């Protein structure tokens, strides 16, 4: 098997996913051995552009310059894999995507000072701009899940990621359900893959894996309303990590409710 050419690229985010790749300590050397890494700016200096079998892209897109770079990467790659919740769903910085108001917020942080770098805009997930073959979500990605996917891609096989919600892993860990205790847990809306770390520490899931494939937003919504949370709070909490993805669903939901009235 000739080793596939891969590249790792970081855009707007916390660099946590690239860091998790570096965190694969024992397996990192294997990873570098099994692939030809053309570019990985966070790990090495001798990076070059070129045709890629797989490009791993981290972070959401929030400047014109990044957008150009992303398009270039897409052109050079057979397969583009979004890694991390920012790349997959937009991440925290995209939570207000549907609301607008970016200019004002930008002004509040940077004032009227002009920044000569590329023009900035509200962050959006990678697939808002280019085709994405696979999403490996997580804030940050989980080592096991990432390695499982990468090893398969390298072997010319199709990765399998859990499609069910965090609750399932939460039960595998035999945690009592936080929702039944009346607290806010985003587990039912959130894709599994983290091993239900938070509920395993008696802490509600805040949804950092982003939305699961088959979520019932309105059920969770109604449940939380019953438990005394107000609509604003629910929406605010739910889209913290789901970013654009969940924001859209919440919007659709409220539109549906309006239509019913």
């Amino acid at each position, binding site marked *: 098997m000739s080793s596939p050419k891969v590249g790792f690229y970081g855009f707007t985010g916390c660099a946590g996913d690239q860091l998790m790749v570096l965190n694969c300590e024992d397996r990192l050397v294997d990873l570098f051995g099994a692939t030809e890494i053309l570019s990985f700016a966070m790990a090495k200096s001798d990076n070059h552009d070129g045709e890629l079998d797989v490009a791993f892209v981290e972070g959401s897109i929030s400047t014109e310059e990044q957008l150009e770079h992303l398009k270039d990467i897409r052109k050079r790659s057979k397969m583009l894999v979004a890694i991390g919740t920012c790349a997959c769903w937009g991440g925290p910085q995209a939570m207000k995507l549907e609301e607008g108001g970016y200019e004002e917020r930008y002004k509040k942080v940077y004032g009227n000072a002009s920044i000569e770098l590329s023009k900035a805009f509200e962050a959006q997930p990678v697939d808002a701009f280019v085709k994405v073959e696979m999403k490996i979500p997580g804030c940050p990605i989980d080592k096991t899940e990432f390695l499982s996917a990468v090893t*398969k891609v390298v072997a010319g096989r199709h990765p399998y990621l859990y499609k*069910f919600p965090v609750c399932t892993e939460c039960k595998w860990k035999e945690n009592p359900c936080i929702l039944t205790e009346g607290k806010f847990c985003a587990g*039912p809306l959130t894709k599994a893959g983290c091993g239900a770390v938070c509920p395993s520490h008696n802490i509600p899931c805040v949804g950092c894996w982003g939305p699961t494939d088959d*979520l019932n937003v309105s059920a969770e919504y109604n449940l939380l309303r019953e438990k005394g949370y107000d609509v604003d709070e629910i929406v605010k909490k739910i889209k913290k990590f789901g970013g654009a993805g969940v924001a859209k669903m919440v919007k659709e939901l409220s539109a549906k409710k309006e239509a019913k009235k």
Partner: protein
Amino acid sequence: MILKMKKEDLSAFLESAKEWGELWGPTRKGDKVAFEKVDALSQMDLKATRTIIPPKKFLYPPRFTMFDFDDGGYVERTGEVPNRILFGIHPCDTHGIQTMDKMFLEEYKDPYYAERREKTLLLGHSCIPDEKCMCSATDTEFIAEGFDLFFTDLKMFYLVWVGSSRGHDLVQMRPELFNRDIGKDDIINYTEYRSWKSSQFTSKVDFTGMPDIFELGYNSPVWDELAEKCLSCGQCTMVCPTCNCYNVVDEVELGTIDGTRDRFWDSCMFREYSVVAGGHNFRDRRADRLKLWYTHKLQAYIGEFGEPACVGCGRCVATCPVDINVVSVSKALKEQEVGK
């Protein structure tokens, strides 16, 4: 064979039993309970009702490796399971294990389940029902077989049922702790205990006639109402002692196609569960998935085996965040209205 044992001897007995294998028992996890590995009786909470996950987790772990493979073929991964003694299993869970046994040990015997079953001793313990228990409705409140030993707490002493030759072997390790002098009072005591236990149930659920009601209510809008509430979180199936569905995936080693074939708990509540080639999904609607599960538990199984696949443990009642469970669903179907 029924023996008698002094209550204070239990600890010493379990201490000796540990020679056979690891001791596991119900321990506190916040305000809930879970089977954990323990060193001594004192770490267990025998008053506890249901554990979060039933003992199926021992016989059939949430995720495990079936095979290692390389291009020479598949090599089964067995032989890594320790001997375990589960103490404090209740009658409902023992019934659950019997249902699992039927599934996994009869036609096409499952070697992974069989190995774990073989290496696990079930030491049952009597229990006091709470408001969620409904084993009286499923006829699983008492148990006559399926355990190795069963301890009924009669306040002053234990009556110990010996249910298998392996259970008998355990007794033989400390024969001095057991005796056979059952007197008149003991029999009266036990009879009173049974009727007292039966009187403790507060759950009003009644499963008689369910197969017909399911048949009649197959197209009832009740299902859609339930589906609107369901989170598709899959908790109900994970905690159910008779749910056995699983999924299988291959994992590979970096740079090769050597790897492992793993198996993990799946749920019919998930959309992905019933998708087939071409993307067609037989149960794309949440309502159809709920219907499958409840039909399986309360109608189809009764039709096939004469008893529901529900053992009355109350876990779905305790677990589902939106109150969808055997009690609420059967009530909704009967009354044609989803309760609040």
